[in-house]
């Protein structure tokens, strides 16, 4: 019975891992490596890579700068209002990307809720590079804010209390104690948000369009090449796989180094406790 169980577990694990890995192997197996590299040299792929990097870096900066204080306030708060805030922060997670795209258009489009006001001052948001940033920020921010809330909540309260009794005000306590102690969790949240942002597709397509060199990010370039040049689509996909793998590995390496936890995952940051 116990042997049967072990066998069952082993088979299920094997099937799961193979299933997860197969599409990635297929991407690299379809096209010879030389063709992959030359396909990447083509203008469309380079343009998309630049747009992706630029928009994602800006979006991540916005997410971290605005999301960190938000997460701190939510993590240290209490009561009904806090629960409402957590739910609001998680909203984009459950929103289908198409709905996010429509929502962003309805809000910031030319005839949108606040888009009209933007139009008056002579600029337009929709279908610009800024729109890509907005779409990515909207979709990816929950990944960061949720991790940051968890990281701040797992801080030993006696750490911040000790800082307060040592004469530090709330600001100094946050900067010198809470931030450094939550750094690992914040880092993993940022990595998650970045990974989600790099892969963002639906909301960007609807809100920013797919203009080569302007709003066409890597996933949009794949979608466009998919009909015309399958090898190019594969090459760009391989590029995205590489970027994602680098993010994942970098995060794990950082955690190995920061914490002795045996299993490091993007979702379970371990923060140093009091000593």
């Amino acid at each position: 019975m116990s042997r049967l169980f072990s066998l069952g577990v082993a088979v299920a694990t094997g099937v799961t891992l193979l299933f997860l890995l197969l599409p990635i192997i297929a991407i690299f197996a379809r096209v010879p490596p030389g063709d992959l590299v030359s396909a990447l040299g083509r203008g469309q792929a380079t343009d998309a890579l630049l747009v992706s990097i630029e928009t994602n870096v800006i979006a991540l900066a916005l997410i971290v700068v605005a999301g960190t204080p938000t997460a701190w306030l939510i993590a240290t708060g209490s009561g009904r209002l806090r629960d409402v805030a957590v739910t609001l922060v998680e909203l984009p997670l459950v929103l289908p990307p198409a709905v996010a795209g429509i929502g962003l258009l309805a809000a910031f489009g030319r005839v949108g809720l606040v888009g009209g006001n933007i139009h008056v001052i002579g600029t337009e948001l929709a279908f610009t590079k800024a729109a890509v940033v907005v779409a990515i920020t909207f979709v990816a921010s929950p990944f960061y804010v949720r991790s940051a809330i968890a990281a701040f909540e797992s801080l030993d309260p006696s750490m911040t209390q000790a800082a307060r009794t040592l004469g530090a005000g709330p600001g100094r306590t946050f900067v010198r104690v809470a931030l450094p102690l939550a750094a690992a969790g914040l880092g993993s949240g940022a990595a998650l948000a970045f990974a989600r942002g790099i892969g963002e597709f639906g909301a960007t397509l609807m809100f920013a369009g797919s203009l080569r060199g302007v709003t066409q990010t890597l996933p949009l370039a794949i979608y466009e090449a998919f009909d015309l040049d399958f090898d190019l689509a594969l090459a760009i996909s391989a590029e995205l796989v590489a970027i994602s793998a680098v993010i994942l590995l970098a995060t794990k390496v950082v955690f190995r180094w920061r914490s002795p936890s045996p299993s490091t995952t993007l979702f379970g940051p371990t923060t140093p406790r009091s000593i």
Partner: protein
Amino acid sequence: MALSVTFDHPLRSYDASIDLTVEPGETFALVGPSGAGKTTVLRVVAGLLRPRGGRVALGDAVWLDADAGICLDPDRRSVGLVFQEYALFPHLTVESNVGFGGRGRVSDLMERFRIGHLAKAKPAELSGGERQRVALARALARDPAVLLLDEPMAALDAHTRAGVRAELQELLRDLALPAILVTHDFEDAAALADRVGVIADGRILQVGPPDELVASPSDAFVASFTGGNLLHGFARPAREGLTEVVLDGGAVVFSTDPGHGRVGVVVYPWEVSIAHAAAADSALNHVSAPIASLTTIGNRVRVRVGPLVGEVTAASAERLGLERGQIVVASFKATGARLVPLRD
């Protein structure tokens, strides 16, 4: 300046209601079991907890006045709080930990606490005793007017404790600050504090110098907490002005204290002598039973005989050849049997 603390605050299963004053230079120990509300007192003084009602003042400086709506933030109260597990910042070096609250006296304090050689070390690399010294230095770097110590010995092993206790004793005397020390160990409290308050269920049951608490515990809880054996029984007046107590186990003991009805009989371990047979001496009370346990603490041995724990020197224990299971007689005088009311 004297520190006065009065407050009441609802806790999980009872309301804490505290009223105490600590004189300048005095060390006041709060002793009681876990969950008695000891740490709550420190949190209220430090400003980490705003109680439902009350007042905290150091001399003329009012830190908390619930009626007037005054409650200073912790960083605006001149307190040094040493946390139970020390709460050292794990990401900062010893030097940065000590200097967190104030840079002026860092090198003096590091020298005073013999941690100068650890300046660049992180807390994780330190021993328990070293961590405690870093925590003390850090709390004092801000030059506080009040020192609060939360179970300063609890995180130390038995070997380190004795030395640390002596150091703390000296430190508290030198600082001459009003200090509140929280501990669950009466011996620590007795060694370090000028006055001790025994706290249970959020209330201070008795306050006094440690020897006074031992000499005349106000009730059974204080007696057992200060280390006495507590036996339950039924008292009635007997011959020659003595009180006879029929213990719940059936044995009869005599006390010089007056009493009647349900009482607690308190016998301190050092009033109990152990022998192979009842000696023809002045002790009126004898309990004959097998030795249930023998515990050696330094040069003393605690011997559990029936319901009593007696304390003898290690040398005596060896001379008598005490062993577990051996039937011996534990004796104590009627003057060593104190009668206390039982709490209901």
